[in-house]
């Protein structure tokens, strides 16, 4: 059986890729994808901890399923926002989104 650490390494890597992408990308869609990466890293952690530490329970599995559902909803909302942003600004660069400051 693959040791648990490997899974955790993959999820940690995904998590920081997501964080890095969230900070550096200027395109709203890529930022959204980065957020999804962070979320999926967490999902992996849930599944792995459940499988390895408490094999007789299913809460972690259900939580990750629940989280996937939530992220789908979040993606729908985010994309709706992005579409509105595009209609207003003619692009989806995040640097353009500072109108509230003025």
């Amino acid at each position, binding site marked *: 059986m693959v040791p648990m650490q490997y899974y955790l390494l993959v999820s940690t890597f995904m998590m920081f890729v997501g964080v890095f992408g*969230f*900070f*550096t990308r200027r395109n709203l869609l890529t930022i959204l994808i980065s957020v999804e990466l962070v979320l999926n890293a967490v999902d992996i952690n849930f599944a792995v901890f459940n499988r390895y530490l408490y094999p007789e329970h299913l809460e972690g599995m259900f939580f990750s399923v629940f989280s996937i559902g939530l992220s789908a909803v979040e993606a729908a909302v985010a994309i709706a926002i992005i579409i509105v942003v595009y209609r207003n600004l003619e692009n989806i660069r995040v640097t353009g989104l*500072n*109108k509230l400051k003025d």
Partner: protein
Amino acid sequence: MEQYSITLLVLLLPLAAFLFLGLFGNRFKPLTAGLIATIEMAATTVIAYFTAFKYFTSDRLADGTFATCIPFDHVWLPFGKTLTFNMGILLDPISVMMLIVITTVSLMVHVYSLGYMKGEKGFQRYFAFLSLFTMSMLGLVVATNIFQMYLFWELVGVSSYLLIGFYYTKPSAIAASKKAFIVTRFADLGFLIGILIYGYYVGSYSFEYSVHIKAIAAAGTVIPLALGLMIIGGAGKSAMFPFHLWLPDAMEGPTPVSALIHAATMVVAGVYLIARLFPLFIGYAPDVLHIAGYVGAFTALFAAVIACVQTDIKRVLAFSTISQIGFMIVALGVSTSTDPHHGGLGYMASMFHLFTHAMFKALLFLGAGAVIHAVHSNEMKDMGGLRKYMRVTHFTFLIACLAIAGIPPFSGFFSKDEILVATFMFSPVMGYLMTFIAGLTAFYMFRLYYNIFWAKPCELKAGHDGHVHTPHEAPAVMTVPLVILAALTCVVGYIVPFGKFISSDGSAYHIHIDLKVAVTSIVVAVIGIGIARVMYRGASRKIADGLERNFGLLYRAAVKRFYIDEIYQFITHKIIFALISKPVAWFDRHVVDAFFDGLAWIAHVAAAKIKGLQSGNVQSYAVVFLWGIIAIMAALLFITFGVFWLL
């Protein structure tokens, strides 16, 4: 007590009229609004007379005095356990007498104003203010305690301010109203401090001294101070020297207002105040009372001298009012006991003179108003020979002049005679001085009379339309009040047994005329009138002009009112404004304000430095957010596992 509950209407009716006309007056035709106020005032007068009738016909107490009735005394504002601010109605002989004076004169003025103010802009506003004034003045006299009196005292000040400044487009009227308000307000500062000292040491504001006799005795030593400060307020309202300077300027207001407020009612509030506090003065501060008397005597002389040379007829009357109020204060000031037979006569004399003076001075002002109405000028030089054109005004004015000069059987003679008797009892010097002032009074009043109605024949001036129009008698709505007041002036002196109702200890006192004093004062008055007749009756002013030349310095000083206004101007502008206000203003601007400006500047600079964080860029916020999480995580780990684990 319940039988006097209707007296509350005396206050509520004018208040209702004020609110009604103030809010909705402009929806009515001017005349309708005026009639509403006048009818309301008539109703108030009837109630006041009814109250007075019932009060003075009620049974006297065992010691021969009238019971002091307090039909209402509502705790309005408790300051402490015992010290409360009450609102109520107190009926005793002097407050009932004042109710009659105020409502009578106010009703006459209301009726008269219907004619005098006809066609003026703001007719409704005028009547609303008159109602406000009447309400405040009535509230002042029926006050159950000194604080309520103070409240209404300020209210009459405000209504006086509003009415002096009635012609608010006229700069001189605005200046006069401000002057009146500021001068009296300044004096009222003393009044307020006196009230607070009194309340602090005695623990009650009530006028029922007998209830608090112990507390008052315990506070003995500060009572003179408190009363002295209160008198300053009274001197301000009653235009005593050195606060007299607002009253002549107050003549900028409409003439009926001068008659009501600045002759008959409001300006005697100071006299009324002293009368109210009379038992305290006699008991604890007779010296303060005497000082007030000396000030009153000086003011009476001072104002009488100025009145002799003024040329504006309303100013002459204003200075005459100041002088007569001086008489009333003197009468109170020479009192040495509450026994009317031994040294307490002045109290009765003062109230009597207040009563008669209100009638004949209102008459004089209303008569002067009719004259001004006819010739459209306040200056004597525009008048003369009016007796042929204005018979009613002439006749009533003459009666009033005779009354104020002290010729029997007109009312002024009786009251002035009592004052003179009281002053002679106190000191002969004072007595002769006041007799001399009485002579001056006769002189300046008849100077006024001859200048208006005799002297040179009236110059007929061509009006704007080219027609020569002769002065004409005022309409009936104006002459009827004149006739009524003249009738009162003729009879109140001897018909009303004044001393029976009002005396210093409340028991009945039979006024008897001291023949020596009476004859002296009549002779002096006749001499005064005679001099005025010689000097001013004819068309030539040879003697008058000669005197003006020979006494040039005194004459000019008197015309300039002895430069008191200039002295005030100098003190306020050159000393107070330049030496105190300006440095204080500088300190405020450059030190106090600068400190807060500095604080604002620091905040501004600091904000400029840190506002870079607020970039509006979501991602930079997220970076801060991440670092924050990392820091919190590090801190938690540090707390949980200790510093060595991290290292």
